[in-house]
């Protein structure tokens, strides 16, 4: 699968705190081919967020350190390329949709200000240039693409003036500003009510399909996995324990852990399930 757009190979990450070193990722392998929709699922503490942060270059080092592995993007290793080269990719060609719409927007700047700042520096890293007016046009264009009815009004607003769903759509718009090829979504909408979350996921799916983007969905929610992905990786304790086509995974999970995850999803019909996941100590 060397033709994959994103290819994580044998990635190991450790955290050192108070003199103790803890392995958090242990040889993670993961592929996201171009235009594919992949999910990375796992419970809290499984390492899915650390994997995402390693890919986006968001790990705070120290305390984290990457002890082995490669992260190939478009055939080039993100971990060995220069910082400058890497910054040309992050936030532009590979971009990210943040999880919590209530806290991921800066409360004291307008949406237009925040989005055009992102665009300005993305352009600068790529050696492009745009006038302020052109930037603003692009911001409004992207806001319209995430189905905002009044892009101008939204752009002028401060985050506090927008609903949670609208803020989440702004976060998606931010990720789309520089026309990425890979979108990494960190459980978008978990902070929203179920109906709004469903709308957001639908929107995200439509956008990804319309533009032929690759999507890596990071989530703990198997419902989201089913909705948004064709291929899924299951993580547990820093290791990918199972990978399969999404339909196959739900039909015949191979690993006990996956099965217990699937059984743990609350159902509205049928017999009441027993609780197969052991309570954490």
């Amino acid at each position, binding site marked *: 699968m060397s033709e994959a757009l994103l290819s994580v190979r044998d990635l190991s990450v450790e955290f050192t705190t108070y003199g103790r070193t803890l392995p958090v990722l242990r040889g993670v392998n993961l592929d996201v081919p171009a235009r594919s929709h992949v999910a990375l699922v796992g419970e809290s503490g499984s390492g899915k967020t650390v994997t995402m942060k390693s890919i986006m270059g968001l790990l705070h080092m120290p305390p984290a350190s990457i002890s082995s592995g490669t992260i190939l993007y478009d055939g080039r290793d993100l971990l060995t390329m220069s910082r400058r080269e890497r910054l040309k990719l992050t*936030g532009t060609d590979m971009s990210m949709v*943040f999880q919590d719409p209530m806290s991921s927007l800066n*409360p004291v700047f307008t949406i237009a200000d925040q989005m055009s700042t992102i665009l300005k520096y993305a352009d600068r890293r790529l050696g492009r240039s745009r006038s302020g007016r052109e930037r603003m046009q692009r911001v409004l264009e992207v806001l319209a693409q995430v189905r905002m009815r009044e892009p101008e009004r939204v752009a002028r607003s*401060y985050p506090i003036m927008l609903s949670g769903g609208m803020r989440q759509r702004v976060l998606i718009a931010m990720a789309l500003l520089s026309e990425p090829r890979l979108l990494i979504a960190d459980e978008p909408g978990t902070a929203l009510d179920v109906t709004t979350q469903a709308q957001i996921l639908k929107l995200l799916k439509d956008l990804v399909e319309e533009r032929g983007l690759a999507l890596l969905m990071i989530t703990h929610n198997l419902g989201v996995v089913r909705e948004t992905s064709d291929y899924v990786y299951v993580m547990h304790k820093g290791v990918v324990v199972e990978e399969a086509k999404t339909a196959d995974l739900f039909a015949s999970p191979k690993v006990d852990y996956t099965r217990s995850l699937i059984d743990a999803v609350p159902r509205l019909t049928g017999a009441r399930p027993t609780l197969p996941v052991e309570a954490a100590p």
Partner: protein
Amino acid sequence: MEFLRFLLRRVLWSLLVLIGLSIVIFIIARAVPGDPARMALGPTATQEQVADLQQKLGLDRPIVEQYGLFIVGLAHGDLGRSLLTERPVNDDIRDTFAATLELVLATIFIAVLIGVPLGVVAAYWKDRWPDNVVRIVAIFSAVTPSFFLALLLQILAGYVLHILPTTGRLPPNFDFAPSHTGLVLIDALIAGRPDAFLEGLRYLLLPAIALAAATMGQMARITRSSMIDVSSQDYIEASRAFGVPEWIRVCKYMLRPSFVPPLTILGLEFASLIGNAFVVELVFAWPGMAAYGIRTILQKDLNAVMGVVMVSGVFFVLVNLVIDLLVGLVDPRVRIRGSRQ
């Protein structure tokens, strides 16, 4: 709209506070032992002379009536006569207020301009050596009494190094009088007198530093903790993921949301600033209202004390109103919701 209503409510509250302040100070000033008339006339005055002055000052009337007379005078903008200087209190305050204002403004300027960047530096290099240096400096400047610092600066810069003058606002016999605003630096600029500006600055520097140290330490500490708080917010992480350069992230995305706590503290610090100004003005022979205030308190110069306290109170209220406005400018949430929190 909400914000305007919020400000209006603050103004009304402030008026109530000022009335309360006037009553409390009025009573306290009269409850302190010592007869103002006797103190003004000296030990050699006869009993009749003292009684005469008491009557003239209205001290023989009931305290409620005295307060009533004070309020009537205040409403007419008349604060009465000073026993100490034997001039109208209005004139005394007019002559001394500008000096204190200039000192306090310079102090705030220094405290914010040095304290806030120090806090930013400390937060950026949290737990590394720059942070440790800033924390030590901030603690020391916050706990050093201003009279001690004033004397230290005077000795060091004035007598040992001979680089800065130690007393007054301008050199003796200097042919320049601040006649527009009363502020030497501003008036020198208006009059186009760079020499007067420079001299004024030289004289202002030491007292302003002595007074600014404590506030600067506070600003650095509050800015630091506020920046650290903001730096762990999701939106800062998000701006990292979008590749916004480090300096924009720190100086724009982090600093502005961090700026509200230091601003609020600055408004509260203002009261102790005026208090400390008494000491600094005495040490540096700065012809300000604070020093005038303390001399009149010692003399039980009741009208002057009331005047100084009321002017300081109004000053305090105005400064805090300006700070409320600034907080609204910095943080749209305050503007939109019409309150803090």
